[in-house]
């Protein structure tokens, strides 16, 4: 006898422009004793050595009505979210994961490296912000150097 087990296929990576709206379709089973509404959220996340970080400014929400059902019932839902450009506090060019979850429950689904974002302009603002740490260090050095020179002079006099 041929025994087949069907499992969901992994999502393939797709490219998006910064500013695009992405529609995520999810499916799930549920049981609930009374008619209720749940809130689904979806958004991109990036991963670094400290773990996974959701890009909050891009998270989209959708409310879904669930009629009372005492036996497991299938449901699908769509959630839209916008890939807010970096200049507006959103995503930079790069690769992101996709996470969807249901507020107030432990239902969550996510997959790494499926959203490839490009199209963020390398504007003057970006150059300035990337040079800010270096400028700050130079300014601090400028303040500290005269102080250390003064202390050295004071020590010689004593």
């Amino acid at each position, binding site marked *: 006898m041929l025994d087949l087990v069907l499992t969901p296929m992994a999502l393939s990576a797709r490219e998006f422009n910064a500013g695009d709206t992405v529609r995520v379709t*999810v499916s799930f089973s549920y*049981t609930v004793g009374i008619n209720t509404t749940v809130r689904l959220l979806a958004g991109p996340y990036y991963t670094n050595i400290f773990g996974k970080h959701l890009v909050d400014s891009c998270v989209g929400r959708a409310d879904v009505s669930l009629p009372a059902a005492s036996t497991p019932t299938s449901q699908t839902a769509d959630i839209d979210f916008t890939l807010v450009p970096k200049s507006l506090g959103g995503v930079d060019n790069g690769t992101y994961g996709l996470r969807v979850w249901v507020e107030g429950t432990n239902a969550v689904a996510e997959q790494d490296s499926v959203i490839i974002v490009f199209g963020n302009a390398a504007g003057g603002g970006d150059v300035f912000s990337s040079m800010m740490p270096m400028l700050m260090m130079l300014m601090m050095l400028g303040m500290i150097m005269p102080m250390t020179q003064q202390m050295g002079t004071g020590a010689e006099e004593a």
Partner: protein
Amino acid sequence: MELKTLALDLGSFGVLQERFVLLAPGWYLDPLTGQRIFYDPNTQNFYTLAGGVYIPLGYMNPAPKQVSLGPGEKLKITISYKYSGPAVSGAIEYFSVGVYGTFGFNEQLVGQNTKSLPASTTPLSYTGSYTFTIPTNVGADWNDIYCKIYGGSPSVPQTLFGYENALIIVGKDPAISEFTIVDFAKV
């Protein structure tokens, strides 16, 4: 709402005759478990110290199936049994949904029918049923049921049967499973 059903077989019994001594109200010791139990002749029930209805060891059984229920839904419990003996009028078929635990059966929903049993020299089959409507304040642990038949004139001996974990109570908070991303695309 869909009507869900459970069926229990109470087995066979005869009429309560002179071999059966009517119990006085008071405390008794169950010979099977050693548990102290109180008998109330008005309700013809034994009670534990904690106030639950006492169900002797061996009368509660694992449920052969489970029924999922939510508030507003109806549960129909059907019992079957056999009886032989003199005609009996006013026997009580008793149905209860509740919580079975260390301190007995804590009844949350009860219902009963009155039954007349004709005289018979051979065991005859009978069925009885009761339909409960699950209230909105149903507890997630109201998952046990028991049924019994007792009383009447002449009285039939109390015969019990119950199922543990027969019900799956669905509450007001959604339980979500198999949550997966099907697709995503630009719109």
